């Protein structure tokens, strides 16, 4: 039974990684084919460095991800604190339902509805080309916000409301009470929200596709590449991303197990 379970887990992992493996192997292909392997070469990697369109897209993706994650974390944390304080059950429930719409809805519907809004506003203020950097940023903040709010809210619920009152009694201003008492208590939720927002933004294709105009992010440029015939340079790019993420996760894991050990020590005493 145990061997069978192990075999099953191994098979699922194989299924998850088969395409990744294929991608890595063919990124080193000598020829331009992504299915016939004709010898090892790193020319697709060196070619990437010279590809300014690709590098620009990478820059755009990072800019959008950082900005949208920061803005949605600030806005979303404030919103979560505000929502916790709302007394009226009905308006709270209504606000929560609206918040969940972008999470529940299909990305394509969210993307299209935002595109229609941007075009509509663009026409109102007389712009020829209303889609671009700014609209992608607005769209990303919009779909990030619910995830930030949803990761901060549970932490706020766990935080004792008396803490804040105690801080106020001891002479803190409401702003001080927030930064000295509430924020440290919810910091893990805020961090989770930020990381989620950042990764969602990095990876988003569908919503960017409808709101970007001529502003190209990495997923958009990859989409355009796969529309024509794909050469191994797309695979090379993805392999680099894969290795970077892999290294990041390993680093994070090592860090976490170290802090686990540290926090476990006093208990053992």
């Amino acid at each position, binding site marked *: 039974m145990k061997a069978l379970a192990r075999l099953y887990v191994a098979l699922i992992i194989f299924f998850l990684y088969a395409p*990744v493996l294929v991608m890595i192997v063919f990124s080193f292909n000598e020829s331009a084919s992504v299915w016939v392997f004709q010898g090892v070469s790193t020319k697709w990697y060196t070619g990437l460095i010279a590809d300014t369109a690709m590098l620009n897209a990478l820059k755009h993706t990072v800019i959008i991800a950082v900005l949208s994650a920061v803005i949605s974390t600030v806005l979303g944390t404030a919103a979560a604190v505000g929502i916790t*304080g709302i007394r009226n059950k009905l308006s709270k429930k209504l606000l929560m339902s609206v918040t969940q719409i972008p999470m529940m*809805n299909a990305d394509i519907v969210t993307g*299209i509805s935002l595109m229609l809004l941007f075009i509509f506003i663009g026409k109102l203020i007389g712009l020829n080309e209303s889609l671009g950097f700014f609209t992608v940023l607005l*769209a990303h903040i919009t779909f990030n916000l619910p995830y930030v709010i949803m990761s901060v809210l549970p932490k706020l619920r766990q935080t004792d409301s008396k803490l804040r009152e105690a801080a106020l009694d001891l002479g803190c201003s409401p702003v001080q009470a927030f930064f000295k008492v509430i924020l440290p208590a919810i910091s893990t939720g805020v961090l989770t929200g930020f990381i989620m927002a950042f990764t969602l933004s990095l990876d988003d294709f569908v919503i960017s596709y409808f709101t970007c105009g001529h502003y190209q992010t990495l997923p958009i440029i990859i989409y355009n590449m*796969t529309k024509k015939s794909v050469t191994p340079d797309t695979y090379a790019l993805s392999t680099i991303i894969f290795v970077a993420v892999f290294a990041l996760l390993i680093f994070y894991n090592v860090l976490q197990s170290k802090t686990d050990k540290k926090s476990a020590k006093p208990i053992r005493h």
Partner: protein
Amino acid sequence: MKNKSLGSKLLSAPYIVWAALFIIVPLIIMLYFALTNEAGVFTLANLSEIGKYKKAFGLSILYAAIATVITLLLAYPMAYFMTKLKISSQRMLLLIVMLPMWMNFLIRTYSWISILANTGIINTFLGKLGFGPVQLMYTPGAVILGMVYDFIPYMILPIYSVMSKLDKSLLEASEDLGANAFTKFKKVILPLTRPGIISGITMVFVPSVSTFYISQKLGGNKTMLIGDAIEYLFNLGVDYYNIASAISMVLMIMILVCLFVMNRFSDDDDGGVVI
């Protein structure tokens, strides 16, 4: 007290404005497009046009449903076996399951072509064994495979997250009370992991039913799903925004109805996200 509610109003005010402008208003504009013609005159013609896309709707629902069921059947044992391992191995496996999610899903989908194509890896292998090439690409199976592959982590993670919090003493109690493995699964494990199953199903079904990339790449021109129809019409230009909006509207309502029905099966009213 008054001070507090004023403060919270001030804090949530920017978000409320944001949500109204970027969540509600866009949907209203979409509704407006769906119910007007190119000249902006009220009409129900777009809604009756949708009949033409009956087949696309049907195929999308069918493929997404099959993909969701397969994903659930594959992911549930995986999540179960994961919880049986040492904590450190569990954490490692969790990373392994999540890692592909961090990669661009366009590429992950695309590299299946290298595997499935007539000159691809599987067919090369079959050819060496003496079998002729089997048509794997541009089939419904390839599209469903793509959906299962792309979204299976979204099924494994919520089920695992619920299962790892399962109270072991309940399982022991059911054994003590004479339940065999099957009864234990049916009466204890399954009901307790239902919230995870339900969030997994929604997280797989919604992106599957509305996809356009997977069907474009792995299904070729033969399979037109509802996402393909919407994307195609929007790319045709402004004249087609009305009908495309109408289809999007119907897709959205369909998804919301599905979610509503699903949520009735879930007694988890916490409203949190399980990731």
